[in-house]
């Protein structure tokens, strides 16, 4: 079956969400991935939204992480402090983030492009809850297109901490030990983080994508897993459910 980049990323991301784990997601691709995971792989995946929704029976894709869909027939309709404190307490396994720029340590910029904070070239939406989730959840995943502009040696603003400047830097800054970036899922490959150096390490390349293509789409040096595999392409049932049940109006996958 044919698929676009967005469908590819969502399908691959959905496979990483284990059953019986807790994930805080935003709207868009992350929410689609979590919904797809629930329907195919992890029926008891617990979805939380930062504004307070806990374990809804999502009737459709939310437009906002605070809209009424996020607590439709939910287990609990709580609050923003409740969700953030649940993260800070160490109960949330996964979160999904996006951003305009990302560096080799998984630090993310969603605040501004430019040199001067007081006069940004482009002001972006900002942290919102991204910094909180990336600081406090155990494993941070990212879904993002990959190109030189986004995957850059030095990002203009560290909105959300990845591994900061490398091994030990999160702990030194006071962030909870054991937390940090986990996977980056792009339109080209799946990237993990090297245990020692905390730098990005390619784990699998998507079907038809070459190492060269990945290298030229990245503004810094990537590490490569000793056994780089080819990513499993989206399966028919994944695409069917994604298109027919998760995002029938193509709000998200229409952007791919």
């Amino acid at each position, binding site marked *: 079956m044919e698929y676009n980049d967005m469908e590819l990323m969502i399908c691959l991301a959905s496979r990483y969400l284990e059953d019986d784990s807790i994930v805080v997601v935003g709207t868009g691709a992350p929410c689609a991935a979590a919904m797809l995971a629930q329907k195919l792989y992890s029926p008891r995946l617990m979805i939380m939204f930062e504004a307070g929704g806990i374990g809804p029976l999502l009737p459709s894709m939310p*437009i906002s992480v605070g809209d009424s869909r996020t607590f439709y027939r939910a287990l609990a309709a709580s609050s923003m402090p409740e969700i953030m404190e649940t993260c800070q307490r160490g109960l949330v396994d996964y979160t999904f983030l996006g951003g305009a720029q990302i560096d080799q340590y998984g630090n993310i910029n969603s605040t501004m492009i430019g040199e001067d904070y007081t*006069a940004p070239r482009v002001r972006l939406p900002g942290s*919102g809850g991204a910094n909180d989730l990336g600081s406090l959840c155990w494993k941070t995943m990212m879904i993002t297109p990959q190109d030189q502009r986004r995957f850059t040696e030095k990002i203009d603003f560290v909105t959300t901490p990845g591994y900061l400047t490398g091994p030990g830097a999160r702990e030194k800054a006071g962030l909870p030990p054991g937390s940090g970036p986990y996977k980056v899922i792009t339109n080209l490959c799946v990237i993990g983080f090297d245990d020692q150096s905390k730098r990005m390490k390619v784990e699998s390349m998507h079907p038809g994508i070459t190492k060269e293509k990945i290298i030229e789409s990245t503004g810094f040096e990537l590490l490569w897993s000793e056994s780089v595999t080819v990513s499993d392409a989206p399966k028919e049932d994944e695409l069917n459910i994604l298109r027919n049940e998760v995002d029938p109006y193509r709000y998200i996958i229409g952007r791919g």
Partner: protein
Amino acid sequence: MADFTELLKEKNVTYRPGGCGKIYTDPDADRARVYFRDQKPRKMVEKTTTVSEAVKNFVSDGDYIGIGGFGANRIPTAVLHEMVRQGKKSIGLSGHTATHDFQILVAGKCIDRCDIAYVVGLEARGLSKIARTAIESGEIDTTEWTNAALTWRYKAAAMGLSFMPVRCMLGTDTQKFSAAMEMECPFTGTRYLAVPALYPDVGIIHVHRSDVYGNCQIDGIMVADSDLARAAKRLIITTERLVPNRVIRREPTKTVIPYYLVDAVIEVPFGSYPGNMAYEYFSDEAHLRDWLKAENDPEDLAAFLQRHIYGVKDFNGYLDQIGGMSRLQELRYQENLVEK
């Protein structure tokens, strides 16, 4: 018997500025106490008024405000429009995912400073051009925070404290442009950021039900409004429905804002429109798209604002403009998953 008493020992520490941002509001808990003692309305008397009077009496130029809800969900649209109509100036804003609310106040040029976590985007709907420009141009002064940091700044105030230790922002540029202090735990030595308590001059919250005294119920997620209601020096409530006091007393477990926190109560049906109000009506996505589109051209925007805000007398006039009850009923169907 486990024993952690050894943690109880003298330590010399240094508190260091963790960022170069500004503190726009006074975090002092003692001064807040005196304000609450002297100014908070302890009388359980009728506080119903009009939106126009409430904005006149309780929001002054230069005030710092906090807005209830999240994004375009359960926002007090009527009060925000009225602030624009009355031309309020130099307003400071706490911006934990303020989206359409921020957009309204920017359109009215009301804001000059913002504790910022997320304000220029409308989530999945895209970015507001005027909001973005207001910040890029330096028209609005900003200090960086995160949604959790702002939530916990409210909570510090709601608890009657002057600060709260938090574990977010650490090590990032978000911290560097915040106004947090670096500190450590007196027991464990764990590194924290201390964020200053945020006591807004005015809180504005839209609720499902309130009695005439201001005892309020909210259905669904609370976002940060329980703490905001307690942190705010003055509090304006708009409510979908005014209900008799006996409705409140029938289920006291549901009261999330008691009357003594409230200065003004106004019944505003569909008061979160074009935002979503859980169990009542969904957001008007078409209208929000129209607004975003109008921002592409200053003349279009001026006409749009004239038609929907400046040119109408009050919020009911706005509801007439957008299609009245026919449109609102569509949004109610949408919220309640009714197939038309």
